[in-house]
């Protein structure tokens, strides 16, 4: 993958009245990568995408696409195309006419249009659908026509605004894989907006997690999942077990802490400074926690005494809901390997939460960024 920037965003801000929907965002999207803007609704991801597409004018900041400043360029002057959330297929035109719509503005000779339309439809496995009307298509087919219409113009960057939101779960999974394969084989930069962390993880090379108009973390997909940088990202990626502890001391490589319940543990320092007496917060993903009947502290495994409150059977796995000594809520995810495993603990039983120190993710709190 080249490291040339397809899209350079510098200090981009969009205010609607007093609210900053996008707040001084700076980021680079590399040429040829599958880039996702991930976040809850209202985090500014769609507004950011719409500014790249030219549908919203930024209040401040700049956008460059392949080096060219397009901050104030109209949508029809940008080398990008968009797949809209509800596809925005023209209902009065056939599938073929939809796909051909923009070709005359991109210097495609009229005689070449049918061939180019057929090629674009072949790309999305809709060969022969030219004369259908959009209202005769299923949701999945419409989504593919929208994709073909945008790809037919051979954009340098393709923008996708939650294009799978209207599809059912099963179809969605299939399309995710197809979309990723298509992106790889075409080598076009994809900028994908979604609120679904699993979807973003499945497809993206890199993910920018957004919250309240700002980018909380921009990283490789796996890093965002494994090493969330902030509490927000951790929670959004499904890591919900937070431990608030006191720092006792430490050395160059690790910090020693006191766990809830009094046991001591040493966590990797990850290059950050912590002083004795400071508070520290870390998170462990539910599947990285282990629920045991015995305290493993003596064997060097961090253990926290807990009380089992409830059990949620999920078929493939079981989620244990437990409470720590200070009333903290934790959830532990366990694969169901044996049929009787779900019944290991009764409600009210005492148990120990164990984890490996390398699975503890030290968080920066909002103050120290």
């Amino acid at each position: 993958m080249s490291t040339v920037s397809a899209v350079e965003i510098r200090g981009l801000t969009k205010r609607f009245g007093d609210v900053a929907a996008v707040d001084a965002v700076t980021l680079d999207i590399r040429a040829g990568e599958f880039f996702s803007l991930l976040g809850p609704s209202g985090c500014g991801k769609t507004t950011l995408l719409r500014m790249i597409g030219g549908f919203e004018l930024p209040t401040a900041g700049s956008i460059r696409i392949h080096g060219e400043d397009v901050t104030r360029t109209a949508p029809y002057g940008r080398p990008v195309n968009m797949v809209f959330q509800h596809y925005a297929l023209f209902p009065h035109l056939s599938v073929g006419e939809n796909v051909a719509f923009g070709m005359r503005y991109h210097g495609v000779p009229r005689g070449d249009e049918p061939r180019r339309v057929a090629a674009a439809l072949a790309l999305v496995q809709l060969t022969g659908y030219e004369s259908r009307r959009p209202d005769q298509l299923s949701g999945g087919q419409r989504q593919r026509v929208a994709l073909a219409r945008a790809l037919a113009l051979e954009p340098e960057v393709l923008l996708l605004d939650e294009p799978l939101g209207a599809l059912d779960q099963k179809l969605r999974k299939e399309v995710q894989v197809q979309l990723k394969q298509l992106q790889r084989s075409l080598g076009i930069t994809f900028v994908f907006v979604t609120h679904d962390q699993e979807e973003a993880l499945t497809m993206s090379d890199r993910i920018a997690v957004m919250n309240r108009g700002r980018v909380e973390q921009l990283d490789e997909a796996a890093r965002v999942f494994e090493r969330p940088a902030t509490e927000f990202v951790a929670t959004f990626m499904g890591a919900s077990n937070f431990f608030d502890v006191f720092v006792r001391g430490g050395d160059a490589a690790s910090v020693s802490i006191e766990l809830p319940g009094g046991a001591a543990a040493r966590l990797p320092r990850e290059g950050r400074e912590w002083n004795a007496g400071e508070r520290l917060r870390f998170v462990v993903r539910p599947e990285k926690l282990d629920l045991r009947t015995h305290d493993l502290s003596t064997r060097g495994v961090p253990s926290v005494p807990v009380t089992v409150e409830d059990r949620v059977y999920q078929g493939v796995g079981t989620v244990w809901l437990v409470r720590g000594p200070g009333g903290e809520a934790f959830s532990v995810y366990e694969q169901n390997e044996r049929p009787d495993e779900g019944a290991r603990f009764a409600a009210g039983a005492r148990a120990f939460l164990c984890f490996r120190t390398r699975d503890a993710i030290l968080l920066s709190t909002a103050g120290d960024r």
Partner: protein
Amino acid sequence: MRGRGGLLGAYAALVYLFLYAPIAILVVFSFNRARQTAVWEGGTTEWYRSLAKNDLILAALKNSLIVGGVATLIATVLGTLVALALGRHTFRGEGFTRQLLYLPVIIPEIVLGAALVTFFGALAFRLSLLTVVIAHVVFCVSYVAIVVRARLAGFDRSLEEAALDLGARPAQTFFRVTLPLLAPGIVAGALLSFTISIDDYVITSFVAGVGSTTLPLQIYSMLKVGVTPEVNAVSTLILAVTVVLIAVAQRLQRRPAEREETS
């Protein structure tokens, strides 16, 4: 339950009878052979044939068609533009303009008629077919704008964004996407406007000059002499045209909603 249903049915039947019996009688008697009496003396299409030879009625019909056609054309263009301005842009006095739009629809026709004739008088405008056209444009604009605005309210803006995204400029987007999608609403507005123009009596009676008698005015003047089968015949024809146009207009207005339901 059944008893109440029966009672309700009977009541409904009476209401419809009250509403439509006079119209039915008018239609039936337009085919009555007798010239004067309200007694059925056998069917004939004689009155329809004599209509075609009645120069007064033909002249009035011509005036009505000219007024209806020209007023509808102007009102459709203006009304569509008003609807687009109100639906698409925010500007100073927008709320006021929107209220103003409904005025010709709600104020009593007699007031509008009196106002127009005063207005033309003040401008020393001679009453003619032109003043009738202007008066009809005044109220037709509102109907067109209201119908087109309704269509515009259900319009998915992302369709226009998609066109811009695909490289079309704003004017090209308007003619290739916006206008074709608004067309059913515009045509419905035009049909409604034509129907209302053809039927109008009160306002027209104020602003019509010599030689600009329209069909409703002509019918009324014929009635002063007495109800003739010819009046019945011409009324039946107007009724038929009106019903067809309204039915078409309603169909055009309904279609987008139905299509969205299935999509």
